[in-house]
């Protein structure tokens, strides 16, 4: 879900995200070469292979469905933010070209969302948290899990923002849908990442990446505060989206004329239950429907495919 397919982004959004992703990739390549010098190619190659292999391991969730690791923050915790960024970029390119997962026009956006948010921002949060909590395998694991959760939600937020900018849906709606979807997805991703980091920190603690540049504590606190504010802002947008939208529609005077919102799924649920409870129900039901739809389709398709590809 995190992968935006072709046809969803407009030319300007595609161009902007491509430029940003290219600049970040070039910077990441330079940083990684500085840090790992000659060993960079085999280390990153094996990390890429490990991410692909890890994505084949299924974790049972509920009612016969299962999920797998995406791995952005985990790779960054192990190999550093910039090496992690390059590994996830390689993964996203392979997914788009070979597995038709995510579009080529959306490659820049997907690199930004999955590699940028997952590895770089995820590592930033992890780093800040470990600065505060101190060393220890359990503390590292908890820090990694929390960082993964926020990074996953931010991945969704970035994707929703890009879709909104492209005029696919009003930004608030796109943001709400993507953030709430990833807020669920992030729980599993965070739990898996935490467990893997815990096991690794016990087996071989020196394998976890240690940043060479020590940041001053004030900067760490400011960064964490910024992330917390952003998360709060996102949840605020998500929880008030239908009301705010209606307000805008009324302010602009097209509440009756053009707007279809009363017929939208969110609005329909909101009329049965008042206030925030209705909104939350609407969001949860919407996500559940989406999950059920994806699961049913995926299951039907694998059943169709199985006799040929076994």
């Amino acid at each position, binding site marked *: *879900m995190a992968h935006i*397919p072709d046809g969803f982004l407009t030319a300007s959004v595609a161009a902007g995200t491509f430029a940003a992703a290219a600049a970040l990739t070039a910077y990441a390549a330079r940083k990684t070469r500085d840090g790992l010098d000659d060993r960079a190619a085999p280390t990153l190659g094996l990390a890429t*292979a490990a991410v692909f292999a890890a994505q084949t*391991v299924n974790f049972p969730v509920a009612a016969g469905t299962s999920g797998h690791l995406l791995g952005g923050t985990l790779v960054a915790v192990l190999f550093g933010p910039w090496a992690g960024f390059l590994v996830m970029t390689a993964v996203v390119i392979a997914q788009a070209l*070979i597995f*038709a997962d995510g579009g080529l026009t959306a490659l820049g956006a997907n690199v930004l969302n999955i590699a940028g948010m997952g590895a770089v921002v995820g590592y930033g949060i992890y780093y800040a948290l470990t600065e505060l909590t101190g060393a220890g395998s359990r503390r590292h694991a908890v820090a990694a899990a929390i960082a993964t959760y926020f990074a996953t939600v931010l991945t969704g937020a970035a994707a929703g923002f890009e879709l909104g900018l492209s005029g696919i849906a009003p930004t608030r709606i796109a943001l709400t849908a993507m953030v709430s979807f990833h807020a669920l997805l992030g729980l599993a991703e965070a739990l898996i990442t935490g467990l893997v980091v815990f096991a690794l920190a016990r087996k071989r603690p020196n394998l976890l990446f240690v940043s060479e540049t020590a940041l001053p504590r004030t900067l760490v606190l400011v960064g964490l505060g910024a992330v917390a504010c952003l998360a709060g802002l996102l949840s605020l947008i998500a929880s008030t989206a239908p009301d705010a939208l209606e307000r805008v529609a009324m302010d602009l005077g097209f509440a009756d004329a053009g707007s279809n919102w009363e017929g939208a799924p969110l609005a329909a649920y909101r009329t049965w239950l008042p206030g925030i409870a209705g909104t939350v129900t609407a969001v949860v039901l919407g996500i559940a429907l989406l999950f059920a739809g994806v699961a049913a389709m995926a299951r039907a398709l694998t059943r169709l495919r199985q006799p040929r590809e076994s």
Partner: protein
Amino acid sequence: MGFAHLDRYAGRHSWLNQRTTPQQRLWIALAAAFAAGLMPPGAWLSLAALAILVALGLPAADLPGRVLARRVARALPFFLLPALTLPFSIPGPVLAEIGPFNLSGPGTLRAAEIILRATLAVSAVTIVISTTRVTDLLSALDTLPLPNLVTSSLALGYRYVYLLNDELDRTGRALRSRAGRAGKLRLWRARAATLAHMFLRAHDRGTRIHAAMLSRGYQHRLPTLRPPANLTATWSLTIVAVIALVWLAGLIEVST
């Protein structure tokens, strides 16, 4: 686990394969995906023309239609479901009422267009890429303006992913034979430990591989034994030009 499944349709002597190199085919795939993905909204005629071009690619690449259908079907849920919410979320005159939901005219049109564009892009990329060996594709990627570290990660990743997969299979089998019935949380912990073990071994293997590469004279670039195909770019340039013309026609169609 074998690695041949990705290359199953790569060795064919198709019209396309005899006239273009892997590198040129990569450019064709990119051009087609960009033309489909960035076709301006409302350019229905040009979109239809592009669809005909993509359909022509099927016999040109000698790819069975059911293979394409299967691979497109795998990608379908990821753009079908988000697109299907558009008829309800884009405001406009109401077409039909389904229970509590209203289907809007512009939203339905928009959804149909996005589904069409996404399908075309996925089909074009699938046709061109599945006729190319992954190793050829990886060396073609080397000619794109990508950092060397990304392309070498892809190449080494492809080389070692099956090995790591087999390792995971073995640890998984050992886990199943020893762990018996476990609760869900224990199972998660066990699988996470398996993953941690794999990452650890991958890291160690990376160090060993680095030593082996150095002893064989590694100089920052992965060598390839396959000589570059010696073909002029006439055909690939023609195909890319036709795709570009269709996209330009789409721009004109919308502006008039």
